[in-house]
């Protein structure tokens, strides 16, 4: 018996003890890598067995190949653009030599947007939509949180609109924007406004709800401190209510940004508005043998960007929050 035990013990020792530094490193790096490895294996295994009308479902290597391709296409397009402008300048310079009165003109480059361009468009749209939503939602939430009357007036509306899908808003937003936003020289394209407003409408609610909750659940003792000090309403809000609600407000903002990113992709797909969603839709319509791989690249990019946005919010939240412990 003892022999068996002494044989098994070292086997158990293969798993490092939980408290050591090595164990923590192992848990922080090796385990996620192992998870990723298992996922890639399962993916390659399954991909080889799925045949679609656009060919075999892409496996990791095909997706990687297309990622490199998309980047190369972007580089090529940039070179083409640079060449386009260089040629124009040359031409203008040559013409100026002959005719000094000539006013040089530069025509803008009109090549199709690359994958990276679409990412930039999507990021700009999501950030402006989120910014507008924040500017609306935080003051609104504060008002609702401070006043029971306003809360009772608006809470049913909030609960009603909170679960509405972006796809339902989109046709309405599109029609209203094209009716109202009439300008000969628009500063931003209509499609940008459509996507942005849809994002705003959908990601408003978590921030409104969390702000209202944070504001209305200020510790009553702190409210009493404010009353004893006879703080003015403005001081009460800025010195007691807001700081105390900041952690909850930021939790709401984080949820809102996550929703904003998800909504945006859907809206771009449906409305054919420039951005990552349009890229996915175009590739789908394109139907080449590479399309599925390229869509998969977009899926991973969407995931990585979403993760990045969330990390940025978390860092911001840690920075402004007085509550040191924050969930991940």
């Amino acid at each position, binding site marked *: 018996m003892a022999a068996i035990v002494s044989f098994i013990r070292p086997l158990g020792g293969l798993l490092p003890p939980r408290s050591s530094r090595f164990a923590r490193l192992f848990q922080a790096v090796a385990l996620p890598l192992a998870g990723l490895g298992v996922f890639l294996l399962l993916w390659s295994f399954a991909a080889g067995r799925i045949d679609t009308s656009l060919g075999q479902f892409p496996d990791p290597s095909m997706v990687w190949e297309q990622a490199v391709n998309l980047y190369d296409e972007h580089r090529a397009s940039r070179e083409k653009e640079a060449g386009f402008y260089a040629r124009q300048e040359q031409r203008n310079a040559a013409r100026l030599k002959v005719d000094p009165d000539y006013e040089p003109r530069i025509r803008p480059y009109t090549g199709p947007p690359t994958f990276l361009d679409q990412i930039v468009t999507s990021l700009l749209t999501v950030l402006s939509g989120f910014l507008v939503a924040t500017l609306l939602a935080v003051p609104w939430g504060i008002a609702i949180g401070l006043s029971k009357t306003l809360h009772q007036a608006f809470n049913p509306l909030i609960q009603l609109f909170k679960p509405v899908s972006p796809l339902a808003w989109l046709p309405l937003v599109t029609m209203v924007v094209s009716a109202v936003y009439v300008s000969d020289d628009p500063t931003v394209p209509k499609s940008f406004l459509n996507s942005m407003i849809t994002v705003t409408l959908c990601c408003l609610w978590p921030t409104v709800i969390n702000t*209202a909750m944070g504001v*209305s*659940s200020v510790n009553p*003792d702190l409210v*009493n*401190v404010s*009353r004893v000090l006879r703080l003015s309403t403005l001081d009460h809000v800025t*010195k007691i209510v807001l700081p105390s609600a900041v952690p909850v407000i930021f939790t709401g903002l984080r949820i809102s940004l996550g929703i904003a990113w998800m909504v945006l992709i859907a809206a771009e797909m449906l409305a054919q508005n420039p951005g990552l969603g349009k890229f996915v839709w175009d590739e789908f319509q394109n139907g080449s043998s590479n399309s599925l791989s390229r869509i998969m690249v977009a899926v991973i990019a969407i995931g990585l960007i979403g993760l990045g946005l969330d990390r940025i919010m978390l860092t911001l939240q840690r920075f402004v929050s*007085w509550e*040191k412990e924050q969930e991940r």
Partner: protein
Amino acid sequence: MNDAVLELSRVSVEFSTERGPLKVLEDVDLSIRRGEFVSLIGHSGCGKSTVLNCIAGLVSATKGGVILEGREVTEPGPERSVVFQNHSLLPWLSVYDNVALAVNQVFRRTKSKQERAEWIEHNLELVQMTHASHLRPREISGGMAQRVGIARALAMQPKILLMDEPFGALDALTRAHLQDSLMEIHSNLNNTVIMVTHDVDEAVLLSDRIVMMSNGPAANIGQVLDVELPEERDRISLASDDNYNHCRHEVLQFLYEKQRKIETLGASASDQKPEDESLQEVSNY
């Protein structure tokens, strides 16, 4: 009764609850002299905190009123500063900034910036907390936080210092330490202090007078005891002092013979402040 700073005249307080009005206090009469240290003692739920909140202006009397130096109390104010049970420091501000918030609010017109800074330091010194002035409430112990709470209340230069079970949440040793500090501060500054407590020893040790409350609902003052002990008190020598033990005995007798609390399950709603009800509504979101 001419030297009374504060007078409670036939104060009754009724809270409206879902099961109809609840009378917490009925006809409480009390008069407090300048420089006096008065303890309010009673079983939990007897409304002693409500008396304090009435004086603070946080709860308004349904009938009767509170008169401070000839004027009726209608709202809270820094001349009746409160030390809350769980220190109630703003967790996002440092110890210094917590006191500064009060000082800058109360003395924004009457003291220069320099004077205010000195006054903040002075009050932190008073409670021996200067060494931690840059720390957040979270980073100091409960006893230290309560010291800061006292510093903040003292810094408002109140006519009356109100303390709502200030040491109730602390362990026995820390509590004894803070009681000693409070005695020292009180003998130096001679403030008028009203303290709610349920600790008999604390009440006898610190007070000039002990106000014993009958059980609620519709609680009232049952008995008032003058503590005839010297100003300078030492907890060790008092333990064998006849007068001290007599006072203790009186209070204990009141609490456990005359006003014996019959514990009924779920019946101690009368000590709840109205704020507690609004807290519960948060869960609706």
